[in-house]
């Protein structure tokens, strides 16, 4: 499996895969591979989102704190 670089790349690939699957344009044999890839991408995206949320929250907290006074 190829490496996932960024969230935006990952989500774009994920959407392509989903579209392919839903259109039934791919065979059953390829399907599980695609699904597996999709699962990976989803996991990456979820992780990314979670990490980003945490990071943003911590940044915002840092910003808000000195502004409080």
């Amino acid at each position: 499996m190829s490496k996932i670089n960024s969230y935006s790349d990952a989500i774009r690939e994920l959407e392509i895969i989903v579209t392919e699957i839903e259109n039934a344009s791919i065979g059953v044999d390829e399907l599980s591979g695609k699904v597996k890839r999709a699962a990976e991408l989803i996991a990456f995206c979820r992780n990314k989102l979670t990490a980003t949320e945490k990071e943003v929250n911590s940044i915002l907290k840092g910003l808000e704190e000195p502004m409080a006074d």
Partner: protein
Amino acid sequence: MVTSELPSGDFRRVFSLSEITGSIERMFRKYYPSPYWIKAEISKLNLYPQSGHCYPDLVERSAGKIRSQARGIIWKDDFSVIRSKFESVTREPLREGIGIMFLAYVRFSSEFGFSLQIIDIEPLYTLGELAREKTETIARLKREGIFNQNRLLPLPLLPQRLAVISASSSKGYSDLLVTLNANPFHYRFDIQLFHATLQGDGAVDSIQRQLQAIKNRLDDFDALLIIRGGGDEVGMACYDNYLLASEVACFPLPVITGIGHSTNETVVEMVAAVNKITPTDVAHYLIGSFRAFNDRIDEASRILHPAVNLLLETWKRQFDETAYGLIDRASGLLEAENQRILRNALAIRDVTTASVFNHRIALSRYEISIATQPAILISRSKLFLRDHVKLSAAYLRHYRNSQQLRVDNLDARVQLLDPRHVLKRGFSITRYNGKALGHDALPEAGTTIETETAEGLISSIVTESKLK
């Protein structure tokens, strides 16, 4: 010796010269037994000083031409008597060019030939002749319009450079020099002597020559002096001579005469610009001229001094007035300029004060602004930032949530299509030669196919296959 014998047979009578002259001598004595009064002109005196005899040539002229001439003889003893009488009366020497009336024997001497033996001369006749000559000279000069010519010349103001016709050794000349040099005013005269014979025979020629010499140097002299004096007053008739008198009359420099005599004024003296008789008088006259000039200068300076002073005074006053006027004007101008500068200074001060005041107000306004504005700005920015942080957080949450949804959605759809889930719902996948049966050819009867279900794999042998 030559014997003078006549040839025989010649009977002509021959006289010796002495026989003839002796005969003439006897005849003269017979026909001219007594002396006669004769008038004639002495054309040449021929006085022999050694012997004392005199042999004058006598002529009678008519219209300038000699009409008659004869030789005279005055024996030594007669001559001295005749001469002293003649000179004492006529004040003229017996000389050539003079007319005389004389008592003479008409003589013929074997030895000397024809002659007139003069035994007496009437001086009154000569005196008359001389007077006549003088009168003629005057008349001729007047007729020719030159009698007053020299007298009309302007006299020099300062007769300083003097040409003097005189005899260097004469008393008159020395009198002139002594008097001039002894002048108490220390006037200085430049005198140049032109030596000449000043009386008697040759005086006319001699003086004429020097007149000519002086004429050639007219620019060197202010006046001409003819000075004579001392010695006999004999032979003054030369000054009545027409030639000399006319030269003097026509001379281009003023002529001053000091001929020094006690007789009548001569023609030369009459025509001269100034006649002072004696050389001493001439000297006094010259000094007097200097003195007069000096007096004129003194007088002029006496007049000029106060006049100049007055003029200077006037000028000084005018100058002072002008100067004071100038100072007044200058100080007025300065005052005006001062006022102007002062006004400008005041104006500048006022404007500056106002400007400073305005700027100060503006500055204080800025100061207040600076003091307050940053706080306001900062708080405003803080609020803005806080809002933005909040907004960003909200947006980020929203964005994350939307992404979450999107991922969840995609996940759901992937789950839905997952073959394992499909198999769980009772579907199965049948493969032939490892490939899912689909669009390819059906497996032939007798071949083995594999069927995958959710729970396991089933191998089956195809009994029949046919296309639908």
